[in-house]
Structures are given as structure tokens and as C-alpha cells.
């Protein structure tokens, strides 16, 4: 009985108030009195200064991205000659090879805190800028033997990493790579032409991070932080 009363009270509380056009008009007229409120001039000037500074910085970023893309293209040619054919479907090595290609689209926008506005196979890419200083600078979308693969490129202090998420059924774990378990997850890793490649699974999808000058521990930190950002929706 007490429970029913509590439920009834909640229903009453959640109901919309009865329609009262006069009251609505009264509120709207009151709220209209705020229409004349303007942002202070100082705020406008600070934002304009920041906007101008941002506009000046944009070409530099693009030039840097272009230079890095050129260097990456050279690595692509090398990898293309050594990658396995993959008769049994795409491999993690092939997915890692996407990270050596240049970005063909600008950086994805930030969406919710900690996430970017781009996903692959239902897994959303993380925004690692605030927590780790890795800023998303570009992306590309490829098809890897029928699997859609999205790669987001991040930069920090002149270093660059590529994070590829392959949609569809998870790719086979690579043979003879080192295996590390961290925070309950499996991470396989190897060095490919001087680049560290780390792969794991998130919500049934294959995730691959690769880049030069990377340390395994730092990549595991990034991957671990990402797993928390999806909690409790699902962990691999």
C-alpha cells in the first residue's frame, strides 16, 4: 500500500501541469525581457582575439600534417611490398598498414567529453587531448577485404600515432606477437619497421594503434582509459 501510494505520488509529480495559456504567455513575456541582454564588449574582444589566433594557427597545422603525410606515404610503399596477401581475410598487420597512409579527411570533431564524433563498428573513437595531450589531427576511411576500417590520427609533441578500428567480425590475433594482459584485457604487440603496433579488442571489434617512437606502457594507458570511457556500456 505504501509502495502504491509512493508510485501514485510519483505519477502526479511527473505529470505536466494543466494547460494554462495565460500563465505560459506571462512566462514568455517575462523571458522576452532578457532579449536585450548583450554579451560584454570585453568578452567579445577576447573571443575575437582567440578566433584570429586560431585562424593563424590553422595553416601551420595543415602544413605539418602534409609533411607527415608525405613521410607516411613513403612507409606505405615499403609496407605494401612486405604485407602478406591475407587469403584468410584481413590481418592485423594490414590494418596497421592503414596507419602509415596519410589522412584524407580533417580531424573529427569532439563530441561528448572524452569522445570524438566518429565511430567504427559501433565503437566510438576517444578524445585523448584533455587527458593525455594527443590531439586528433585527421582521419581516413578504408575498406579492408570487406571490412570498413576507420583510422584516426593523433599527434603530440611532434609524434604521431594511428588508431584503426576495423568493423565486422574481429580479426584473428596475429601469430607470434608478444602478448600482455593489462587490466583484464589482452593486448598483442610487435615492432613493424620501427613502428610499435598494439592490437586489442573492444566490443568485439579489432582495434590497432601504431606509430613510431611509441612506448608500450603509454599505449596501454591510452587503451585502458578508453575502456573506462565505455563502461558500463560494454567492455571487450
Amino acid at each position, binding site marked *: 500500500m505504501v509502495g502504491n501510494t509512493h508510485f501514485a505520488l510519483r505519477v502526479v509529480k511527473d505529470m*505536466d501541469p494543466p494547460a494554462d495559456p495565460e500563465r*505560459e504567455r506571462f512566462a514568455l513575456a*517575462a523571458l522576452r525581457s532578457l532579449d536585450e541582454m548583450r554579451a560584454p564588449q570585453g568578452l567579445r574582444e577576447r573571443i575575437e582575439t582567440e578566433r584570429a589566433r586560431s585562424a593563424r594557427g590553422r595553416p601551420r597545422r595543415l602544413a605539418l600534417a602534409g609533411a607527415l603525410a608525405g613521410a607516411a606515404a613513403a612507409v606505405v610503399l615499403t609496407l605494401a611490398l612486405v604485407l602478406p596477401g591475407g587469403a584468410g581475410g584481413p590481418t592485423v598487420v594490414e590494418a596497421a598498414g592503414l596507419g602509415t597512409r596519410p589522412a584524407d579527411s580533417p580531424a573529427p570533431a569532439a563530441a561528448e567529453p572524452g569522445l570524438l564524433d566518429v565511430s567504427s563498428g559501433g565503437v566510438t573513437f576517444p578524445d585523448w587531448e584533455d587527458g593525455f595531450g594527443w590531439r*586528433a589531427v585527421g582521419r581516413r576511411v578504408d*575498406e579492408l577485404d570487406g571490412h570498413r576500417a576507420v583510422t584516426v590520427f593523433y599527434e603530440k609533441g611532434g609524434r604521431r600515432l594511428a588508431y584503426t578500428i576495423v568493423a565486422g567480425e574481429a580479426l584473428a590475433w596475429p601469430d607470434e606477437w608478444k602478448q600482455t594482459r593489462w587490466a583484464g584485457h589482452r593486448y598483442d604487440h610487435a615492432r613493424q619497421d620501427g613502428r610499435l603496433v598494439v592490437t586489442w579488442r573492444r566490443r568485439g571489434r579489432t582495434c590497432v594503434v601504431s606509430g613510431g617512437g611509441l612506448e608500450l606502457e603509454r599505449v596501454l594507458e591510452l587503451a585502458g582509459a578508453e575502456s573506462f570511457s565505455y563502461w558500463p556500456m560494454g567492455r571487450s
Partner: protein
Amino acid sequence: MLTAVTDEPLRELEPARLGDHIDRLYRAAIGLCGSHADAEDLVQETYLQVLRKPRFLRSDDDLGYLMRVLRNTFNSRYRTAARRPRTVEIEDHSERPEPRTSVRPEPAAEVAEVLAAVTALPPPYRETVAAVDLAGLSYREAARALRTREGTVMSRLHRGRAMVADALGYSS
């Protein structure tokens, strides 16, 4: 084999156009914060975040996107601070205003009173009134910015306005 596929069309948010929205965003911010100083900080932080890197949208709704960032920033940084004791700039409203029956409230001191009424709303109603009535978003834009449904926006708006009217002493 590796073959590139085309991505969905995206439009870059033009920084040059963002200045057009400062006033509306500022009104929404002051409705959320209840303080001119906090609203200034919130709007500035919102623009800094948006300008930090190129942003790409799938619609023409620049203001809605800014509102979403503003709301996220407010939720993550200002709500905790708002729980702490703080100096209130608006006038003392310890005395409840006399009941009013006219559709149009008296202009005297109404700005401060209206802001106080909006700021006192529970968060879901406050952010909805701020998005639609102060920033001027449509129901659809507000629903996208607040990550909810249009029906929810309309319902919250209805209740929020009713609470604002009551706080201002409306009597049928």
C-alpha cells in the same frame, strides 16, 4: 585489397561565423549560471574549446552545436562550483512579489527577477528554457543540443515556463 571509400558529407564550422552567436549563447549561459561573471567564463571556455581544433558538423546548426558544448562545459565544470556558497549578484528577493494577473509583468527590476526564476529551475528545465527561450533554438535544435527528444523538450519547456511564472508571482 585496400580501397578508400567516401565518407559521409561534413561541413567545417567556420570560426568567422561564430561571433554571430555570442549574445544568444551569453543569455543561455547566464540562465544556466545565474551570474554575469560565471556566464562570461562559461561562454569564453566554450569558444576556446570549439576553436581549439577544426570542428565538422553534419547540419547547419552552428548555434545548436555551440549550445551543446556550452551545456557539456557547464555540467562538467560549473555545476560542482555552483554547489559551493557564492556571492549572488542579483537583487534580494526574500520577499515574494505580489500576485500578478496581467500578461505582461512590470518592467521594473524584472530582468533580475526573471533571471533568478530561471536559475532556480531544476537543471533539466533550466537548460531547456535556456536553450529555447534564451538562446532561441527550435525544439528540434534544442533536442539535438540537449541529447533528448523533441517531446521531452516541449514537456520540460511547458513545466519550466510554468515554474518561472509561479516564481514571478503569477496568479490565475
